[in-house]
């Protein structure tokens, strides 16, 4: 419908219909299908002595470590910035681009690649949050030195497409009202103090989420003279979400996981199969 420009905004808004995604956190999401997430790793394709991927990995997510008889690759998705350089560098296809973005986890070790058969169940959340907060969550966000990419995606959560409010999740100005401290950035020397003060100002029980690879591990930007390496050793972290930046559905998935409204999908650096509960809306 074409309306005159002078028709009131309210009428215009009503005639626009609903644009909010029904997305369900499983399988393909509209608008995200071409999104390049964490590259998948298949060590069976690796050639002996090859280190092309490790040399092309700026944040050091891929490293050669001494193994039992020879060096092997260690892959830490908590350091991955989804730049896809390893995919291009790998001569054998051991790294392949994928649409895998739902990498929120309650345990840092779930982000480190392990052979599926040997992987125990994901460690999951350390604490029961649902009993505490029911289905609602209030978030205080702190930018501890991001590149503004994570903020761009966090701000997108409140656009009509994702409409975070419908899930009972809200950003709040005061840490006194906040249940969750959501931190972006590698933690600069100057933001460390204000970050800790914010955490101290939150009432207990309080939870902490490291959003984006910088906050999880420092990523490409951490270290150096002015930055730490993310939240490790700074605050007790309940939820790690790597991604550079994590796309809005990944953030929503991690938030709902925190509320135990959706399961963790990453174990041993690999996503579970998307098929089993595809199409189920969130509880």
């Amino acid at each position: 419908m074409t309306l005159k420009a002078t028709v009131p905004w309210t009428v215009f808004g009503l005639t626009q219909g609903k644009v909010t995604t029904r997305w369900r956190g499983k399988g393909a999401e509209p608008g995200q299908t071409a999104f390049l997430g964490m590259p998948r790793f298949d060590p069976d394709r690796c050639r002996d002595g090859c280190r092309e991927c490790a040399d092309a990995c700026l944040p050091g997510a891929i490293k050669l470590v001494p193994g039992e008889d020879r060096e092997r690759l260690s892959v830490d998705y908590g350091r991955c910035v989804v730049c896809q350089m390893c995919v291009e560098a790998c001569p054998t296809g051991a790294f392949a681009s994928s649409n895998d973005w739902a990498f929120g986890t309650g345990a840092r070790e779930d982000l480190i690649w392990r052979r599926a058969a040997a992987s125990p169940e994901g460690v999951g959340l350390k604490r029961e949050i649902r009993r505490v907060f029911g289905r609602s969550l209030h978030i205080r966000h702190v930018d501890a030195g991001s590149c503004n990419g994570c903020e761009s995606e966090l701000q997108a959560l409140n656009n009509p497409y994702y409409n975070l409010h419908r899930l009972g999740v809200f950003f709040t100005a005061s840490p006194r009202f906040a249940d969750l401290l959501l931190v972006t950035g590698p933690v600069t020397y100057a933001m460390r103090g204000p970050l800790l003060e914010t955490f101290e100002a939150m009432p207990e029980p309080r939870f902490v989420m490291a959003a984006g690879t910088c906050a999880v591990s420092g990523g490409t930007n951490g270290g150096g003279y002015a930055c730490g390496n993310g939240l490790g050793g700074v605050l007790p972290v309940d939820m790690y979400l790597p991604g550079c930046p994590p796309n809005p559905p990944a953030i929503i998935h991690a938030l709902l996981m925190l509320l135990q409204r959706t399961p963790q999908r990453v174990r041993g650096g690999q996503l579970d199969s998307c098929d089993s509960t595809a199409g189920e809306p969130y509880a």
Partner: protein
Amino acid sequence: MSGSNTIKTEDLAAGDLVARCRDALGEGARMQFMYAWFPEGPMAPELRYVVHPGRTCPPRLWRCRPGDVPPPSLAAIAPLLSWYERETTDLCGVVFRDQPLPQPLVLLPGTRSDRPPLVPGPMPHLSYTPSPEDLPQLAGTTPEDVQLLPFGPIRADVLESVQFAFLYAGEAILHYQPQLFFKHRGMEQRFEGLAPALAAVLAERVSGIGSVAHALAYCHAVEAAADCEVPRRATWLRVLLAELERIYNHLHYLGNLCHTTTLKVGEAQGKYLEESAKQLNTAVSGSRLLRGLITPGGLRREPQLAGLAAGLAWLENEFQRYADRLAATTSHLDRLMSTGVLPPQVAFDQGATGPVERASGLDRDSRRDQSYGAYAELPPGVAIAESCDAYARQQVRIAELFNSIAIIRAVLAGLPDGPLRTECRPPPRSEGLGWAETPRGTAYYAVHLDADGRLARVKIKSPSFSNWRVFPYTVHDSNMMDYAINEASFGLTVSGCAR
């Protein structure tokens, strides 16, 4: 193209700097930025000044080795250089004679570093004990009426960390002082020692919502150092990516501006269009911020262009309706008109760039004036406004958005075939200067390579560093109710400024 090999470089004695700067400014030049690096070891800094002799001239370089004598500050003649000098003092340990405001800039008050962080050598150790900012003492008949409002660094909503000090009386802001460097990450130092190709990934992460333009300016610098000619198809596709970046940024800008004028549906619509643009980005590049394609020598892979023309046509139609509605909404326009006036002379002298300077009537755009890549073949329309206020800044962005769509359409219509990438290896000890027009103005990268062909020094001049310097001039003597609108109308980022 944009290389130092074609850039006229002059060696100046420290004693000649003031006279030369005065002469150049008298002839209409603008100093762009300055920095220091250490080609001959930690005791011998070399200063570089990047000068635009005229609007459409290629930049020129001045090189100065001050030796043991402190070089003169040029801040009194070219005010925009003041911040670069203070940053050079903080990070490179070079002190400037007669610098009018010798306080630290990039390192917060109360920061101690055992050595200047960018001087070659071991990793410096920073210690930090927060201490109050220096604020001016306000005189007057009733100084007790003046209140101090410190705000930040953590602000309400999802925003970047930055701290503002307002000295105000009632509604009137008497003095405004931002502290922009809580987010200083030492990004320039993070480039040091990296292989040039790998560091493009880092350049994308200096200012996340300027990923394309930052990577582009960086790659232009490396390509200049390598004397490498980028294949024509890649230059066209780079233009496409850069204009897609402008589109989603400007849509975000308009949604955010509506947020500050409390036009709720206008905010929702702007941010919905931004989301749609980001989803187009994803279809094209696999990244919502268009990361992962630009590399020295061209592009890493083909962008996916199927569906882009149709998506763009839809977006243009929706945006036209949106822009028409904004133009017909007097409650919105009333808040913008005469808010945050930036006079052209202040914009020029203090270094405003991008839509901010173009909204103050300065007809400058590096895509046209210092043309790079395919912009010579795809001349961009440059939007200008004369009213110098928040309204002008909105109008420039709206016009630029339509221009960007037109440029992308031209790219799709005439995209040349051919290779995407060429070998690009800058030789040891080479250097290059590159630039690109981000959605916020011109970004420059200067790169210097070491004896092994790795990056020895990378200087980043970001547009928000320039525009944040300018912004307070529009806040002093304004009122509190207009502040948020004025800030949104500048469309600044902190990450680009603080680096």
